[in-house]
């Protein structure tokens, strides 16, 4: 049977976060968490393949213990098995060390045939973790997948969205794809599955379960990029404000469009 692993992440429930100007740290008080919306499309893609071709679907996440919430949610959508990578040594990870940790977690459970990732997360917005996981696992990847065409015995055929063309490619298993939002409409968690899976265990792995236990490759230690500071975006201060009656404003806009050579 085809083995699929989908990577999911718990993210803040909103992107309306503020920065404390004095400390330069995110204010996260009272912010709820949810599953990264882009991951719902990855999960739905995996579920569609499972329904059509038969597959065993595992989800994997990395984060603090409370990130197991998103794995439970994946169970309610139809995932068979869930794995949480949680260790204080994973803390402070950037893209590279996150991808490396996930690749170690995936490999620890035996290499799946197909790994499906969402396009990006809503908190980091980088869209880089998927391709980096593929690199660490030495498997091919295709990003921007907009359609699953066919599941063959040894390969998957997908449509990849490029700016000027749609490319249909066949990728041999094992491989990784990242899917665009809108590939399929994600289903809602089912109450029936919630009842059925409430006692299903969530496996947890930490660093000592991995093949590579070199601490300098995980968390902050394994992160080549360092955040020097974070700060709120600047507002542009050089600006004009026009007030007045409708006809006055129309006249002013019209004149400016002419002086700027747009008319």
């Amino acid at each position, binding site marked *: 049977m085809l083995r699929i692993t989908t990577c999911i992440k718990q993210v803040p429930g909103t*992107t309306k976060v503020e920065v404390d100007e004095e*400390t330069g*740290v995110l204010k*996260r008080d009272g912010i709820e968490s949810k599953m990264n919306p882009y991951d719902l499309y990855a999960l739905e893609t995996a579920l569609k393949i499972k329904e059509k071709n038969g597959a065993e679907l595992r989800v994997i996440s990395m984060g*603090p213990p409370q990130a197991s919430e998103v794995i439970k949610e994946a169970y309610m959508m139809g995932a068979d098995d869930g794995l949480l990578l949680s260790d*204080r040594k*994973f*803390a402070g990870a*950037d*893209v590279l060390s996150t*991808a*490396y940790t996930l690749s170690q977690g995936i490999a620890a459970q035996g290499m799946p045939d197909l790994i499906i990732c969402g396009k990006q997360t*809503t908190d*980091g*917005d*980088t*869209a*880089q973790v998927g391709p*980096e996981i593929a*690199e*660490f696992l030495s498997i091919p990847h*295709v*990003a921007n997948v907009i359609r699953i065409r066919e599941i063959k015995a040894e390969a998957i055929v997908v449509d990849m969205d*490029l*700016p*000027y*063309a*749609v*490319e*249909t*490619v066949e*990728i041999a298993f094992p491989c990784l794809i990242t899917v665009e939002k809108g590939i399929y409409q994600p289903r809602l968690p089912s109450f029936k599955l919630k009842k059925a899976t409430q006692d299903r265990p969530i496996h947890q792995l930490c660093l000592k379960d991995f093949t590579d236990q070199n601490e300098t490759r995980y968390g*902050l230690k394994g*992160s*080549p*990029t360092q*955040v*020097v*500071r*974070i*700060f*709120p*975006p600047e*507002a*542009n201060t*050089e*600006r*004009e404000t*026009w*007030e*007045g009656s*409708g*006809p006055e*404003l*129309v006249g*002013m*806009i019209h004149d400016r469009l002419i002086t*700027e050579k*747009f*008319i």
Partner: protein
Amino acid sequence: MASIKIHQNNIKDRDGLLEVCPFNALEWEGEELVTNASCKMCKLCAKNGPEGVFEFKDDPVAVVDKSLWKGIAVYVDHDNGKIHPVTYELIGKAKEMAAKIDHPVYAVFMGAGITQKADEILAYGVDEVFVYDHEALTHFRIEPYTAVMEDFINRHKPTIVLVGGTTVGRSLAPRAAARFRTGLTADCTILDVQENTDLDQIRPAFGGNIMAHIQTPAHRPQFATVRYKIFSAPVCVDPTGVVTICDVEEQMLESRIRVLEVAPKQASTSIEDAEVIVVAGRGVKQEKDMELVQRLADLLGARLAATRPLIEAGWADPKTQIGLSGRTVKPKLIITCGVSGAVQFTAGMTNADLIMAINNDPGASIFDIAHIGIQGDLYDILPDLIEKIEATEENVCTTIPE
């Protein structure tokens, strides 16, 4: 490297200790206070916690010999030899930074039948274009492209590699960065270089609600991706650089991906290429009124774009959405009509040369970034403006098409 050391003996009062951390990364493990996987190494506990309890320990890191890495390389993004303009924008930024540290600017150009196109790149003032021209590189497939990039980096050791934030770039850059176990910062909006060749990278995160300043202090090369229309292309110069043809070895071409079919899309009507854009926002009350905004766009030779709520309502083509979950645009002029100016929208258009915003709410945040903030109702302004422009155009243009 960095860690938080907790001196258990110095804990006098257990109450409120967990609240010292805004990330809930502190917990009691029996009698012992420990950090968990949520720790961001933000040092707030060391700064705000009770004296002597939290200590931030910053151990020295193994740092590469930065003097061995020289040059700023730009990946040449192209479609069958048609070079994507983001390439030139990156060359412009690379030249600016290279001048500060006296490094050369390289371009890495891979594909099939592209050699004669390399001269085009020289005209932008690149010192050396490295061409990997091979039939098997016709289509972008990740393994061969990464192998070529790897070959280039191993041979020439650039300190910085800039890649356009295109479909190909966003796939290739992370793959290559992971191969060298080095840092990559995506979607940078500001780049600068320090004397010691460290790259200062600034990028939005959390949907643009915060900006992060990122460095890669101990690793080389430093990878960064930048989206189209963030920087400006340099003016053309008399070429002084050289084109170097590189060998493509068979083992670089191994791939487990087979391209079966390439279906071209319709000619681009993309808003990214538009010089003038008129945007409809939530101030547009009903679908029929989109015609009004469209008419203004037509008169200005502009493209019509929309904000997310209107796209979600189905009033406009999703390809015309501006913002973080849509497109990034950098037109000469953008006129927003009834757009409130959420950061998720403005992050996709703040680089426009001239922003004119029409909104009847004086407190709308669009006015924080607009160059010209017009406080008025679009329903008062647009019909008259359209009429006035039509009258002007009639005066200029005597032949009105039937």
